[in-house]
């Protein structure tokens, strides 16, 4: 066990793309934590998706030994956190495991929405925040201006902030010295009963759940019995130790102030919830650490296997993902159109996208996902209150006394020239203007209260395109507000396709209904007969398009030598049909195989249609829609 005053526990926080992971790489190198030949970019982000997208999804920790200028060797525990608004709670728990945070700010872009949000999270968690100005090698870098911004906007002294380039390795020792010098050493009493904060956990098929924790008080030893204070489960610690960039180093015990892992043959990651406190069974702590909460999903979506027979595989895959991601929730649901699947709850859109991509890539599943939905609160005429996360469960309008939808306070930081466009956009999305502040001459912060529903539609994409990507967005759930909501149904060939239904504000119903019908018309291949595409509220049709019948699909010549070829052709067409789904009487081909074949824009409501095996038994119910493209990763 290391002396407390030789330990520094810190996180790196930043707006996306400001260089957090690159700085982490440099710190690792400087401390020779990784052999040069093993070094690679974004070494802490070892999930393929993380590397590809340049984001951090899972929190991770690493222990570095730094021989400082004062001749002492310090233990630096770097806890890498996800940066996205979806993972705020995870971030806050990771931060709670630290005494300080290094705030990375891009020397040309300056303070952005997530810079602010993450800094406030860190300050709220009582952390010492040390700014670092990164990317000083860029031509547009203006470290002095950015330092002033940090002081003016955030109120952190930044005069002495190191000016670095993580990419080119400029001035990295200054950051390390600053960490040792300016960050407080952890406090904690190793003689008290054990209290360790879980900030993440990961499932390993050999060892079971690996719990990442920070010891706040007491000591955790190999072989001791521990209890999860909020979960209640009890385990015997099998192995305890320190975390390295590559692998783990078992130790006998870890004391207050230290960061590490333990394993205890834990089968289920949900028994080790992020934020929970680990204590000893023999000498339990009286009080758990503060700040644990049960995270509630913000966004729900139906997830179905493209091939109905793969339902058990999807269930297993979700189970496995859940081992590593306690914030993922799912329960079985079924749809007339899509068969058996799961209603999944996600922390936000990014989280949703990541889970879907991981299901597809790591488990090789083809998915059909329904449009994301927020959770509505409906008070019925009989006084009962229901939370509705699935449009299928939306009650009949006559039974609704009050319908409410979740609102968020959105904070948008943008160069002033885009303010007009953003205001139009927010207005259009039922945003309520709160205020506008000039952060400096080049940046304005706008606040709007907006329905979350509008944000998950395609707000982020619209914002990016209207501001050429300069605006940044952050939001916080503020509560529920009464709203004039309706359920919009889509009918193909006269049959409601349950999977296409969604809830929206009445004022939006007409234009959106029209748009959906148009899009479906464009994307559903012609069938052997005409198909009406309709959108309806209750029994009232509010939009209609017609898909004309297929006119021609014929092989003109078929003589002796053509027969084998023709048979192969039919075989091939049949293979295509295997990837079809019938919606009522409409068959839908699934183009989802290739993510680049994006037939449907990413966040559009119905961005999810796919296919059934054509059932000849019910020819009477047979048409086709090309499936929605698999959604594209957003960067």
């Amino acid at each position, binding site marked *: 066990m290391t002396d407390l005053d030789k330990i520094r526990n810190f996180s790196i926080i930043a707006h996306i793309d400001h260089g957090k992971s690159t700085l982490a790489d440099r710190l690792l190198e400087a401390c020779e934590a990784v052999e040069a030949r093993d070094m690679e970019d974004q070494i802490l982000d070892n999930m393929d998706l993380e590397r590809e997208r340049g984001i951090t999804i899972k929190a991770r920790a690493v222990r570095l030994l730094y021989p400082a200028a004062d001749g002492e060797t310090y233990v630096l525990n770097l806890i890498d956190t996800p940066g996205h608004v979806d993972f705020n709670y995870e971030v806050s728990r990771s931060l709670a495991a630290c005494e300080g945070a290094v705030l990375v700010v891009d020397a040309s872009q300056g303070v952005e929405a997530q810079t602010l949000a993450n800094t406030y999270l860190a300050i709220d968690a009582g952390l010492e925040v040390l700014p670092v100005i990164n990317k000083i090698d860029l031509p547009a870098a203006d470290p002095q201006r950015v330092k002033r911004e940090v002081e003016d906007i955030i109120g952190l002294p930044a005069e002495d902030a190191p000016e670095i380039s993580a990419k080119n390795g400029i001035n990295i020792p200054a950051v390390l010295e600053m960490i040792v010098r300016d960050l407080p050493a952890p406090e904690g009493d190793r003689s008290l009963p054990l209290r360790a904060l879980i900030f993440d956990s990961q499932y390993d098929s050999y060892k079971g759940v690996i719990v990442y924790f920070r010891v706040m008080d007491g000591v955790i030893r190999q072989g001791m019995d521990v209890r999860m204070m909020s979960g209640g489960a009890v385990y015997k610690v099998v192995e305890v130790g320190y975390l390295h960039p590559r692998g783990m180093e078992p130790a006998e015990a870890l004391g207050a102030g230290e960061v590490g892992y333990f394993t205890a043959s834990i089968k289920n990651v949900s028994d080790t919830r992020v934020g929970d406190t680990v204590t000893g069974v023999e000498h339990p702590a009286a009080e758990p650490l503060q700040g644990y909460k049960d995270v509630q999903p913000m966004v729900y979506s139906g997830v179905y296997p493209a091939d109905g027979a793969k339902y058990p595989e999807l269930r297993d895959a979700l189970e496995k993902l859940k081992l590593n991601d306690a914030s993922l929730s799912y329960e079985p649901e079924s749809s007339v159109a899509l068969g058996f699947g799961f209603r999944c709850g996600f922390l936000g859109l990014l989280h949703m996208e990541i889970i879907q991509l991981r299901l597809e890539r790591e488990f090789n599943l083809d998915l059909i996902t329904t449009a994301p939905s927020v959770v509505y609160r409906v008070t019925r005429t009989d006084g009962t209150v229901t939370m509705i996360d699935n449009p299928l469960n939306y009650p009949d309008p006559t039974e609704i006394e009050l319908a409410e939808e979740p609102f968020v306070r959105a904070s948008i930081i943008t160069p002033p020239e885009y303010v007009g466009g953003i205001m139009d956009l927010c207005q259009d999305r039922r945003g309520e203007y709160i205020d506008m502040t000039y952060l400096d001459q080049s940046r304005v912060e706008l606040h709007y209260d907006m329905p979350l529903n509008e944000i998950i539609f395609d707000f982020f994409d619209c914002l990016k395109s209207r501001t050429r990507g300069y605006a940044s967005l952050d939001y916080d759930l503020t509560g529920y507000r009464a709203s004039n909501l309706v359920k919009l149904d889509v009918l193909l060939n006269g049959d409601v396709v349950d999977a296409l239904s969604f809830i929206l504000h009445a004022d939006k119903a007409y234009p959106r209904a029209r748009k959906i019908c148009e899009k479906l018309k464009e994307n559903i291949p012609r069938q*052997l007969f005409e198909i009406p595409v309709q959108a309806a509220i209750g029994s009232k049709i509010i939009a209609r398009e017609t898909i004309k019948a297929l006119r021609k699909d014929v092989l003109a010549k078929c003589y002796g030598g053509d027969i084998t070829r023709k*048979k192969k052709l039919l075989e091939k067409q049949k293979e295509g049909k295997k990837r079809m789904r019938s919606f009522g009487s409409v068959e839908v081909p699934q183009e989802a195989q290739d993510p680049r074949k994006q037939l449907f824009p990413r966040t559009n409501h119905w961005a999810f249609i796919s296919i059934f095996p054509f059932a000849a038994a019910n020819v009477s119910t047979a048409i086709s829609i090309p499936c929605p493209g698999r959604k594209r990763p957003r960067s």
Partner: protein
Amino acid sequence: MDRYVRALEKHIQEGGARAPKYVVDTVYFGGGTPSYFGAERLRRVYTALSRRFNIAKTAEVTLEANPESITEKGCRRLISTGFNRISIGVQTNNDQLLKVLGRPHTFRQAQKAMEIAREAGFQNISLDLMYGLPAQSPQAWADALGSVIDMQPEHISCYGLTVQPGTPLYQYRDQAALPNDDAQAAMYLYAVSTLEAYGYHQYEISNFAQTGKECAHNLKYWMGGEYMSFGPSAASDFAGTRYTFASDVNRYIRAIATGDAITTEVEYVPIKERAGEYLMLRMRTVYGIERKEYESTFLMPFDPLETVLNFYGTRGLTRYSRETGRWCLTPQGFLVSNQLINQLIDAQRKSTPLSPHRF
């Protein structure tokens, strides 16, 4: 060329030995441009055939010919050899378009070829036509069809142009102003009704004939008959097996001489597969399919097929004849026959075979 004729003769000799009890009722010289082969060589090959096979006196003997290769002398020689049917690739009546299609003849030459064949004594002449050609308007198509009807053949084949990868047209297909599917469909339906009005009944997706002049040879393909072929790339379906010969002429000649294997694809077609082919091929014709014939041949239930047929019957794509008890596709149905046939085959695959005791 003569080496090739000798190889064919030898091959025919071998083939004849395999079919001692067969009476041959159709002979077809087609694929590529057999008319370039010259009447003399054609005569040699036909003679070899008649020596090794029992060819019926009433057999239909067809030659496929390009207009520019047809001569008076050649035609007379063919007639005396025993040929009695000729199929001429007219394609269209517009010389510009013929050039685009890479055809060396003009429409005038095609008319001339027709006259020569008729005068030489061919009583059964078929003309090939194409629609859906680059920039072809409905009017231009009506005009082309009219000019061919004016030539008074006994039989007309109408093919929609399919732009295949590898053809010159394929490269600039986007600039070729090809009529779209709807326009092609309209051209097709116009042809079906016009030809009917002039006494040419549709009997297959692309084939029309005066009564009694349907091509007996091609019907063999569609009705599931047996046929034996000779020459490179030739496909046969004989004694339950479908096989194709090597496409390279030199390899073909060499293999015949040495007795090496010359088939590139050999496929024994089991009855189950034949049931699918029955649907695939019969439904190309107006003779269509029939419950009893189907159930007793393949021991498969007809009901699942009828469900499909009934469904599309109400939509005008299939037709049931009370007189004959047969189901077939309508002209609209022929246009989407790939889809319909697939659905029928699908229904067939999902059905359970009938108990053999029923029959």
